[in-house]
């Protein structure tokens, strides 16, 4: 059975003598309860929360870029495995990528902040892709359930259209179909 290209061996170092937690690359970490972060996300402005998420994502994307010799030529599977590994280490949930027609959709299951941390995760995805493959991406929220989120990877203009359609009552499936100028018969694929 093939295994993931993401190797988490000793990715997190607990230095109990010094009272510190650090990643293998050297960055220090704080272990915070998810409830505390959720409360903070609910109290803070959405833009600030998104910027916070983007900062976290950029650090993750930089590590991905460092591990992949040629991130620009990486396959979808490699990027998914690396991003999912980073997200798992941070306790943000399990990431996968779906393709609906031409549209790429990031899905995160088991996200502990799904109730209040949508902007945090959206910013995380945007920052990670910016740092790893050098693309300015808008992670437009499509769906939010109790423990899962879906984001459309699109440009800023398309994100605004999708947001407007969904505010007008369209489902995210219809919005994706409309974005591609077709009826809602696109066939989804998932990695």
């Amino acid at each position: 059975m093939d295994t993931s290209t993401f190797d988490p061996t000793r990715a997190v170092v607990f230095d109990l003598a010094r009272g510190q937690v650090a990643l293998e690359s050297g960055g220090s970490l704080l272990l915070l309860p998810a409830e505390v972060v959720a409360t903070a996300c609910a109290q803070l402005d959405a833009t600030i929360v998104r910027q916070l998420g983007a900062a976290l994502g950029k650090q993750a994307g930089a590590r991905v870029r460092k591990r992949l010799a040629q991130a620009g030529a990486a396959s979808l599977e490699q990027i998914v495995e690396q991003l999912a590994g980073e997200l798992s280490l941070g306790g943000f949930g399990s990431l996968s990528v779906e393709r609906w027609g031409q549209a790429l959709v990031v899905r995160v299951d088991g996200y502990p902040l799904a109730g209040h941390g949508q902007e945090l995760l959206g910013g995380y995805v945007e920052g990670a892709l910016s740092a790893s493959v050098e693309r300015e991406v808008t992670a437009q929220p499509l769906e939010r359930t109790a423990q899962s989120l879906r984001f459309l990877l699109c440009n800023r203009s398309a994100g605004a259209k999708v947001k407007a359609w969904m505010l007008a009552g369209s489902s995210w499936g219809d919005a994706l179909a409309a974005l591609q100028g077709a009826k809602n018969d696109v066939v989804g694929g998932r990695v």
Partner: protein
Amino acid sequence: MAASRSMLEALLARVQKRANESRAVSQVMPPLEAASADSAETLPPPRAALRDEVVEEEIEEYDDELIEIIDDADVIPQAAAAARAIEPAAFGAAFDRRPTIASIKPVAAAPRAATFPAGTSAVGTSPAATSAVATPAAVSAARLQVARAAPALEGLRAETVSPRPIAATEIARAQGSRGELRATSFLELLDASLKLGS
């Protein structure tokens, strides 16, 4: 309908004679109830079944003749008196022609059995019928009902229409398998997604 006295007398004599013959036959043959009361599921012997049919036909024939006689009773009172004296019970038939309450149950079960697929036994689908034949009189009535219902069930044969074989054709067209999607360049896919809506 008017009938002459000589014709009626001849008819009455014929009926009385055949009634006496039937009584004699019933005395020679064992009672039907005794032959069938052992088990409700045991089929009647061929001879007894044949006798049932003969007696049934005779009774129906006599009924028609008696009805005609009774219809003329206002014209010939003595003919009516003679006709009343000849009751079906006088034939010595060992069963009740009119179904009892218990014997009605198998009648109700017969059409229901016709709704089951072929091969389903009507006996197996009607526990009520089994309990209804606990008495000898009910056994006799049930036999009559089964004999009458059998032709009707034969007529209820299911006609099945099955789809003809479908020729192999390409129903859905897929653009690349999952394995190919995994190996596709991420930037290629991301750029295609970023072009949407612009």
